[in-house]
């Protein structure tokens, strides 16, 4: 396959579990070298997507390709080029963390090639501060996750499928994780990173997809997504800004004396600015939309501004 073909390509993917439609016409596109954030609430279908990508589940309809090949048919060949960190890491209780890491490195090593880079492994073990001699059943959740992360990151692969990889990591380890993913990106690896943790995705991802009830509701670079949402404006004016309240693209309008706070749809900022100019602006602050806002819009069916504005204020202060 040509080098520029997408690493992951899904078109109208459907996966049903009896009455549950876990993936509902899902479309996903990830280019080589791209870090792709995959956001969605519980039960949205993130883990199901990963399992379909691994060829462990078979889609009911639609197209799914990894490196241009069918993950169900060519699982083994494709698995040589990827590493996976499960969302709920269950390890073999009687093995030590070090043994699990080595086992995966050996399983992934190419035919005939018995050696793998112990240097990279040891380096990661040190950075993640893991004791590899402990039996995995005595590990805490975060440490089990580290084992899976290290064995994935130490592997020489083109694609990392990470299912909520930092759910159990402490803040220090999360910093290490961010560094390591940036290094992987620098080496040209592609990453599919599912998460609930917005800040992490925001910092690492080139592009982001938001999945809800099995369907991608929004996808694009962070700035593309911002364009699709609302900007929060806090303004102090000499004359009352009340006239803005009735406009269709202005939301969640609060006025308190001279101070007015409201949100405006991304593509109507110009109109609002024009009207504000005539009111005598004393001070103005505009906040770009945060990922929380993006998610809020798609997570809650209720799109009233309460949740959005409170999270905005939190982010601002």
């Amino acid at each position, binding site marked *: 396959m040509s080098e520029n073909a997408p690493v992951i390509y899904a078109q109208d993917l459907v996966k049903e579990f009896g009455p549950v439609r876990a993936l509902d016409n899902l479309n996903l596109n990830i280019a080589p070298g791209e870090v792709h954030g995959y956001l969605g609430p519980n039960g949205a279908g993130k883990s199901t997507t990963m399992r379909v990508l691994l060829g462990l589940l078979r889609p009911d309809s639609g197209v799914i390709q990894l490196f241009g090949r069918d993950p169900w048919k060519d699982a083994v060949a494709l698995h040589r080029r990827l590493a996976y960190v499960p969302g709920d890491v269950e390890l073999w209780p009687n093995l*030590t963390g070090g*043994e699990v890491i*080595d*086992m995966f490195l*050996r*399983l992934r090593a190419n035919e005939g090639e018995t050696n793998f880079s112990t240097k990279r492994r040891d380096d990661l073990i040190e950075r993640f501060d893991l004791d590899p001699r402990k039996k995995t*059943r005595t590990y805490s959740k975060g440490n089990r996750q580290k084992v899976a992360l290290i064995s994935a990151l130490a592997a020489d692969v083109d694609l990392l499928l990470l299912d909520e990889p930092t759910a159990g990591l402490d803040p220090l380890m999360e910093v290490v994780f961010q560094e390591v993913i940036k290094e992987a990106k620098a080496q040209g690896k592609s990453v599919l990173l599912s998460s609930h943790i917005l800040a992490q995705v925001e910092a690492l991802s080139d592009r982001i997809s938001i999945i809800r009830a099995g369907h991608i509701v929004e996808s694009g670079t962070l700035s593309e997504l911002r364009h699709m949402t609302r900007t929060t404006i806090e303004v102090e004016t000499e004359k009352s800004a009340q006239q803005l309240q009735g406009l269709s693209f202005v939301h969640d309008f609060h006025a308190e004396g001279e101070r007015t706070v409201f949100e405006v749809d991304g593509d109507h900022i110009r109109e609002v600015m024009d009207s504000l100019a005539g009111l005598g602006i004393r001070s103005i602050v505009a906040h770009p939309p945060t990922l929380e806002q993006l998610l809020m819009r798609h997570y809650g069916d209720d799109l009233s501004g309460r949740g959005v504005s409170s999270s905005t204020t939190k982010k601002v202060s």
Partner: protein
Amino acid sequence: MTTTTVTQARHAPSPASGKQSSLAGTWVLLRFMLRRDRIRTTVWVLSLGVLGAYMAQAPKAYADNEAELHDMATLFADPVTRMMTGPGFGMDDPSFERMFSAAYVLMTYLVIALFSIFTVVRHTRVEEETDREELVRANVVGRHARLTATLTLGVVANVIIAAIIFAGAAAEYSAEGSALVAVGSLAVGLFFLAITAVTVQLSEASRGASAMAGGVLALAYVIRMGGDAAEQGGNALSWFSPLAWTQQTAPYVEDRWWPLLLPFGCTVVFIWLGYFLSTKRDVGASLLHARLGRAEAKPSLGTPLGLASHGLLGGLRGWGIGLILSGLLFGSFAQTMIDAADDLPDDFAQLFAGDDMMLGYLAYMGVFMAVLVAAAAVSGITQLRIEESRGRAEYALSAPVGRSYWFGSHLTVLVVGVLLILGLTGLGMGIGAVASLDEGGGEYFGQLFLATFLQGSTVLAVIGIVAALFGWLPKAAGGVGWVIVGYGGIVAAFGGLLELPDWAYDLNIFGHLAQYPVDDISWAPILWLSLIGVVGITIGLLGFNRREVNRV
């Protein structure tokens, strides 16, 4: 519940010490267990009670008249039958009630013991293993509450079972003997509740706790085999097995109550020990602390075969040690069999005599061992199912390991492992026989080994069936496997007494090989059983290759 805050660390081990706080929440937990298991427990209790009560009718179904009754008694003069069913008191003057207690009671006791073991493990160690216990113990629940609630549940269930058995037996037979049979069932049930209360403290894994308690049950059965086979009424060996104690009461013959003091006494001691040990460990932990292991894997681990060995060898080793020792033991009964056969009065001399009798016994034990080896195989495949449902199969398969390769590696380890166990068990049986026989042992050695090893075809067939199911209907695999093995075990041990129609005997997969070395080897069944095995494994591999992984 109002409790004074007592420092939990310094509790006396016994719940009877009146420390209310350590029992806080017992009642709530008990009600919760009943709610969770309302169907499961009811089905177990009713079916066990009815099974026990039905057994009281069985001799009448088997023998219509006095003459047939006497024929049946001859069977119990046979040491091999005694070995399976008990000491056989009162067979020189047989009656239906004596037949009932000699032939059918032990079968019921065995299942009751299993029920007790499963109940305790399910409500204690399984809860801890899955971390649900942590959730519960974070509430106002004392440290002894769970064990107490579990034991209460077990005791009540066993009392009801005993009551139903008594009602069934006493309706037909004398009240005192029937009471002994029923209280005997209670004694077995409580004894194994108590044993399991100890084993769940020792092992961190529920499998381990069940295996240890099951091992005690197997040992109890094997010990009494030796004792009861040696003489009618059993010999000294029969006094070292809790299963034998409850039969030494000789219901309907001597009606002695005092042997029951032994199991009830032990029950009290082991329950105390269980509580005591539970205070010596943390929630979720065992008494043995995990040590540090290797920081790097041995090269062998980095292959699917290595992974499969890691997963399966522990279990196979346990089965292997138990089975090979049993083989040695059964083999060493050879001389006993010859002696016992020589002692038989002429009109009792039935199926075999002398050496034939001994060989017949050993051929029969070969079948018995095959059933147990097949159980080891089924247990291996259920372990595979656990790998899958816990998500580890998914994780392993995310490496470049093909589905058939993964499943195939596990099957390879399993087949090689069980055939090895079977071979070594045959070897053990041969060695035991040669060592015990006064004369001419050497010539039987090869025959005994071969007799056991040929059973490999049956074991292979069982693996084939279960593997095919694992590939296509994974949910059914374990259940069907245990039914095949359990049915084979019951027919092997008690088959002659059950009066089943022919097709029911044909259904028993372990009943098709010729009784070598008594009869000649017949190759046809060996071939088609092996064929079932190979075809089943192939079908299973194909199925696993095309089915989804962990699709619950």
